[in-house]
């Protein structure tokens, strides 16, 4: 179970990333954020975001046009 959930469904680039960044700010290091997105571009973008920021993309899945990402905030 994630420490926080961000529903970014219906939002387009770059809002899912910007909102995720905001949510991560409020988390303690090591805690997790789950993000729901309907933006197909979010697949490449969350991977790039995590590689660049050092936050860990723990897992991702897709179902019914909704992508779910679990990100652990870097320590």
């Amino acid at each position, binding site marked *: 179970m994630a420490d926080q959930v961000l529903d970014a469904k219906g939002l*387009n*680039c*770059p809002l899912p990333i910007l909102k995720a960044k905001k949510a991560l700010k409020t988390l303690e290091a090591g805690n997790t954020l789950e993000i729901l997105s309907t933006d197909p571009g979010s697949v490449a973008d969350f991977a790039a975001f995590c590689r660049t*920021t050092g936050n860990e993309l723990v897992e991702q899945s897709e179902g019914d046009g909704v992508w779910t990402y679990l990100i652990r905030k870097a320590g």
Partner: protein
Amino acid sequence: MSNVAEMSSPQANPGIDPNTMSIIVTKGSLDWAYPPFILGTTAAAMGLEVTMFFTFYGLNLLMKDLNLQVSSLGNPAMKMPMMGMHMGMPNLVSAIPGVDAAASKMMKSLMKKKGIAPIKDLRELAVEADVRMIACQMTMDMFEYGQEDMIEGLEIGGAATYIEVATQSHINLFI
């Protein structure tokens, strides 16, 4: 001759923080407002220190009251999705008064439908993310804009101010 990757790697510029970016913003229409604000806010969210320098029509994007317009005049690539196809606009039609306003309204409603943020929101997010914004003094003089016309938190500067930023930025974009 060293290869491109070597030349552009952060190691090639030991004094420059790789997480720095500057953008020169030169255009102020609805469509051209997006690239600089999307890239600026996203770079800031990814931990980069971002500076945006607004000059000429780009200054329009700093006004308190934003009423951004797009024109299909002389823009053959602008094809809007309509009735299952993509429709462009002949220049002769684009030139008719009111057509720009209608096209702008149409693009804004399309953006809203697709969950694309209004420029005002992206601009607020940029301010929140401490993106440094510099308004070009010369353009302000030329178009007779005062600081009271523009949003809070701006710096005013000229070419040398930007060049100093550019020498300290790893990524420099002109939009």
